[in-house]
């Protein structure tokens, strides 16, 4: 790899990369995100590689293994450029056909195209797919264009241009005022103004300052940070280097969850390549500015997403938060001023420097600028990562992009903000998605998880799920969080077991208030949100559990019973075949019966019954 010592070196490198890329007539990109991996994209990629290697006519084809393209549910995804053909659910056996038909003959393979659910029309290009149409993919968009392990791919899409602009055309103060003017707010959850944080850290006295990228991403149901670090690690790194120059930082850390092995690996590769190229380390681009980054691995503790706990973890200690009377910008890692931002925040920085704060602030709402990546998951048709301008309505995200409900069950709520957020009922789906609107209705933006729930989701069960989650993840340092959540969990357990009483709900609310008011860190302070929002919008479900001993969504096992309607059962035996506990008896072509005492209430019989004879009450 060449070593870049000046701006002109970088320009020259980019020109070389581009002219080399031009030699490729055709680019086949196989999505290498974790979702696609689960569906077997590696086999698809290997098959392509094998045939291309053998076949002399295919030497001009470039095969790329890219980062996550977001539409994970449709994986493995393969695109072909410059035609812009988008193939979904590609399997190993489709590969020879793609090469012989599409690549050599220019024919589009109908059976691999996405079919519009409403119009039933086959769609060739990504842009026409409803899932992508309403998106504004500024930060995520490049994921599909580059191989995250090749720095040259990033250089080719104007990578590190923002860094060169920042180092040679801007003063640190100018960068900070540009970030401030852009209105960028922290994407990790709280939405603190990024420019203000940088300024505070720059002004904090101290020779050594640290820069941290938070990729702990503990929020269950959110995975955009993983996808960015896996798919475009250099954009995050570039953001960090610019931040370090603006703040005066000399060392940085990317704190990655241990559960994300691919993110750890790709970040490591990116750091090594950037260092070799002279974009990281001593005297970056010959500017005299030096900054280096290391990876710190997390150990699977949700609380380590909290800044002070994360810092404790990097220091090699137990991840317990501390009181934030003195902010981390003044005293953070090893007692030195420390600026910590989330992955997505860092990835936005190069865009703002390149395009300007005015451009950035033209996107979004008055107080929430730019775009936000959400992980649209749960009971919705199209699941995956979506990037939308701030201010877009929930309805647009869930119905236009997400395609609405999965089956006959209607969507009733969306959970945002992870365990610190809340459930927003369908009646409020006209709400614009920005930091402040979501907080107003009792939820929050959080890191961007958006879990859609339908009539088959029990809100009492969801509330209990979050309380147990947080109780387990509580570090145990302060009493309200440690004990309060445990008691809240017990009350919810009793409701689910059909042992709740009228006092259960008032006690739950009282406890929730105490936990929120008196906990030490953000984990405890926001922990009651899922319970309070569920009680606010779905109180009748709690009351049904308590007074009628009934779970309307048919989820809470102690309160439900599976049975077979004699009149509808055709005796096909499919249910008996899948039943993992052999609880279904019956002769072929005769009505079947579920033995309640053996039934594990897993619902497999209901899933396979073609005549809808299995009911649950």
């Amino acid at each position, binding site marked *: 790899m060449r070593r870049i010592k000046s701006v002109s070196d970088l320009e020259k490198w980019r020109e070389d990369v581009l002219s080399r890329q031009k030699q490729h007539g055709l680019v086949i990109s196989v999505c290498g995100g974790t979702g696609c991996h*689960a569906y077997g994209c590696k086999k698809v990629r290997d098959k392509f590689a094998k045939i291309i290697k053998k076949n002399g006519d295919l030497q001009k084809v470039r095969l790329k293994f890219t980062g996550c393209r977001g539409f994970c549910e449709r994986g493995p995804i393969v695109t072909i450029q410059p035609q812009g053909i988008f193939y979904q659910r590609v399997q190993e056996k489709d590969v020879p056909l793609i090469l012989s038909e599409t690549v050599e003959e220019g024919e589009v393979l109908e059976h691999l195209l996405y079919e519009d659910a409403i119009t039933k029309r086959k769609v060739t290009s990504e842009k026409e797919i409803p899932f992508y149409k309403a998106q504004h993919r500024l930060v995520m968009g490049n994921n599909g264009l580059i191989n995250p392990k090749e720095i040259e791919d990033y250089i080719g899409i104007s990578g590190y241009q923002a860094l060169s602009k920042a180092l040679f055309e801007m003063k640190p103060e100018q960068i900070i005022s540009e970030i401030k003017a852009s209105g960028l707010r922290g994407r990790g959850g709280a939405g603190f103004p990024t420019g203000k944080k940088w300024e505070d850290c720059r002004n904090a006295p101290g020779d050594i300052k640290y820069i941290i990228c938070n990729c702990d991403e503990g929020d269950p149901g*959110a995975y955009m940070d993983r996808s960015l670090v896996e798919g475009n690690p250099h954009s995050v790194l570039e953001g960090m280097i610019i931040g370090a120059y603006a703040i005066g930082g000399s060392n940085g850390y990317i704190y990655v969850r*241990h559960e994300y092995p691919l993110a750890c690996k790709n970040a490591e590769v990116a750091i090594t390549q950037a260092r070799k190229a002279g974009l990281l380390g001593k005297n970056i681009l010959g500017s005299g500015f030096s900054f280096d980054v290391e990876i710190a691995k997390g150990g699977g503790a949700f609380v380590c997403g909290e800044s002070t706990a994360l810092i404790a973890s990097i220091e090699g200690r137990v*991840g317990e938060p501390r009181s934030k009377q003195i902010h981390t910008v003044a005293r953070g890692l090893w007692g030195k001023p420390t600026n910590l931002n989330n992955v997505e925040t860092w990835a936005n920085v190069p865009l703002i420097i390149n395009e300007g704060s005015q451009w950035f602030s033209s996107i979004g709402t008055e107080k929430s600028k730019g775009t936000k990546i959400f992980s649209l*998951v749960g009971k919705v048709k199209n699941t995956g990562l979506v990037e939308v301008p701030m201010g877009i309505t929930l309805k647009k995200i869930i119905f236009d992009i997400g395609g609405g409900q999965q089956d006959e069950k209607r969507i009733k709520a969306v959970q945002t903000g992870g365990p610190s957020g809340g459930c927003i009922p369908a009646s409020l789906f006209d709400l614009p998605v920005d930091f402040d609107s979501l907080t107003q209705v009792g939820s929050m933006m959080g890191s961007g998880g958006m*879990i859609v*729930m339908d009539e088959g989701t029990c809100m009492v069960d969801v509330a209990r799920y979050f309380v147990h989650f947080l109780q387990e993840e509580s570090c145990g340092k302060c009493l309200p969080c440690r004990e309060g959540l445990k008691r809240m969990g017990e009350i919810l357990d009793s409701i689910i077991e059909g042992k709740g009483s009228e006092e259960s709900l008032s006690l739950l609310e009282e406890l929730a208030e105490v936990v929120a008011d008196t906990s030490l860190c953000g984990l405890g302070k926001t922990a009651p949100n899922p319970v309070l929002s569920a009680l606010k919008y779905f109180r009748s479900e709690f009351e049904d559990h308590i007074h009628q001993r009934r779970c309307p969504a048919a989820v809470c096992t102690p309160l439900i019973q599976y049975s077979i309607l004699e009149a509808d059962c055709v005796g096909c035996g499919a249910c008996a075949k899948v039943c993992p506990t052999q609880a279904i008896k019956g002769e072929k072509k005769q009505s079947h019966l579920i033995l309640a005492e053996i039934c594990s209430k897993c619902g497999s019989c209901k899933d396979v019954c073609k005549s809808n004879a299995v009911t649950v009450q």
Partner: protein
Amino acid sequence: MDLGQVGKIIDKYQEKRTALISILHDIQDRYEYLPEEALRKVASRLQMDLNDIYGVATFYKSFSLVPQGKHFITLCLGTACHVRGGPKILREVKKLLNIEPGQTTADKQISLNVVNCLGVCAIGPVMFVDGKFYGEMNPVKAKRMIDKINKNRRKSGVRS
């Protein structure tokens, strides 16, 4: 047990106390759990109290102080997997293996773990079996997977 690798791992991090978590990760990757002798060695080389190391090793979920089975089943119970039926799968798997999450079957073959999110939410419920992700799981598919592991084991048992 050969703990020769432990010394090398500590050397790699130049005996830095701040690298404790990384050292433990490397030991766990190498031995698939944290052997007590290894922790004692870390304590003496890093000149740290064994209690503090024990504190860190038990605080973070990635670490295990007991040996793991030959096969790993990790079930994701993140919110997206939860609303799509993750708990049903867990009930089934627990019953099939006759163990709780965090435990290993008596024959030391299969370890069961649950995690709060694997970050593959779009295709939930997700199971991570021996380094591979499986999406859109349900109790029936989970049963088949465990049957397969058991069957392969028996087969390989015959051969050896």
